[in-house]
């Protein structure tokens, strides 16, 4: 049985204490929590951990339980503390026997259609300028990426890098909008 399974379920009061430790303002604390969780997953995935999300939650659980002890004396960037706990959890993970990764492949036609519907809805919410940029940015085949993007950048009067950043930021907005639409 892995050490993670021996841990008790994180209590609500511990979680609330963690958020309060991250930031007195609950809104900012929630944003900080999400950003820390995202970083942990990105790093653990980059290190090759197949269960990156599960490990990230375990790390957060451990920090939440230790807040009672460290809160009075801890000084410095609180995010760095998570790094230390992450390294420990990662070392423990590497000592575990390698389990086969179960990948469930589900071809959900309904979900795909819903995603397309939400995409249409979210595209409508874009400004005409942003909409045009996205349409041109994604209207390309595999071989023409650089040439087409150069042409698009020239049309908009911006550099290639600026085009990429703007398009990806629009892409990020679409992602958020679609996920909210799917949850609705």
């Amino acid at each position, binding site marked *: 049985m892995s050490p993670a399974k021996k841990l008790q379920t994180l209590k609500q009061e511990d979680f609330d204490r963690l958020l309060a430790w991250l930031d007195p303002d609950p809104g900012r604390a929630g944003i900080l929590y999400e*950003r820390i969780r*995202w*970083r942990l*997953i*990105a*790093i653990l*995935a*980059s*290190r*090759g*951990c*197949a*269960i*990156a*999300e599960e490990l990230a939650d375990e790390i957060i659980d451990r920090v939440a339980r230790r807040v009672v002890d460290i809160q009075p004396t801890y000084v410095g*960037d609180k*995010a*760095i503390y*998570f*790094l230390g706990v992450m390294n420990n959890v990662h070392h423990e993970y590497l000592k575990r026997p390698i389990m086969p990764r179960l990948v469930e492949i589900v071809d959900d036609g309904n*979900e*795909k259609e819903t*995603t*397309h*519907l939400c*995409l*249409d*809805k979210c*595209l*409508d919410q874009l400004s005409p300028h942003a909409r*045009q940029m*996205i*349409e*041109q940015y*994604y*209207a*390309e*085949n*595999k*071989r*023409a*990426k650089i*040439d*087409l993007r150069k*042409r698009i950048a020239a*049309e908009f009067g911006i550099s290639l890098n600026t085009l*990429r*950043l703007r398009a*990806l*930021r629009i*892409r*990020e907005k*679409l*992602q958020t909008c*679609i*996920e909210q639409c799917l949850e609705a």
Partner: protein
Amino acid sequence: MDDDTRQFKESNSQEFSDDAIRRFLFGRLSAAEQATFEEYLFTGESLEARVRLAEFDLADDYALERLSAADRKAFEKKFLLSAERTRQLKVSTALRDRFASTATVAAPAPKVATASISERLRFLFGLNQRAWRLAFGVAILVVLVGMVWLWVKEPRIKGGIKAGIFNRRAPVPAPSAPRMAEHSNNASSIPEHRITPLAMPPHEPTASPVILSVELFTDAPRDHAQIPLIDLPKGEHDIVRLQLALKSNETGTFRAELLTINDQSVFIAQSLLSAGRDSGKVAFNVPAALLKTGDYRVSLSRADDGSKRSVASYYFRVR
């Protein structure tokens, strides 16, 4: 700091290259690079924002099949390890399905513009979304049903439409009113005009002709004061039936001639038979329209012995 580290960091501001970010996402950084990258990722907001955008870029490249075989493997093994990244890939796939084409690089810009114009038209009416397509179809159906219902339930509408159609096709009516006045006294004139086929002119109802029966005797006084007086009926088809009493109940076939006081023949009735052996009368009908105001004589003669012998005369006055 070795050359690798210098290349790893683009400048003294310790920015990382896009290539380094992508190698981080594939898990291909060296141990030293990995430690430095992780530290800056946890402490620097700018690197975090760039890595987030790079995740979308990588998901797009995978969905659009821009990755090499090795990179596709690394993507599935090292990148697609969280629910959030799986959702990113689904959106990238949806964008690919929506916009990606198989056009070549040489495709001219107007082709893209043409597609966007048609897309704009679709978006103008919201027909890109199924829900709006359904709503649009239902709206058209409701309008059609409403029109049919009005057509069936409101005969005035139907009649109005028909009147509009017929009015365009009706012949021009002929003029009529002045001739009728001129011939008002002519009993045989027929109205010649019709206003329209739909607006039928009013006409007098067809009634049975009035028959005025008058019994005349041969011994009736002829003087002006006691001659029988007849008030003619006014209808142009009315009848005056003259019943002539016979002397001594004569029988046979008779001929009657109606004459004015000036012996002008007005009407002749032939082959008159007495009504019966016991009735002692012969009768014949005269159109009332032939009679004018004045005195008249009926000359009765026999018609069965070839003699044309005068049997009797009968007198009356029309007033």
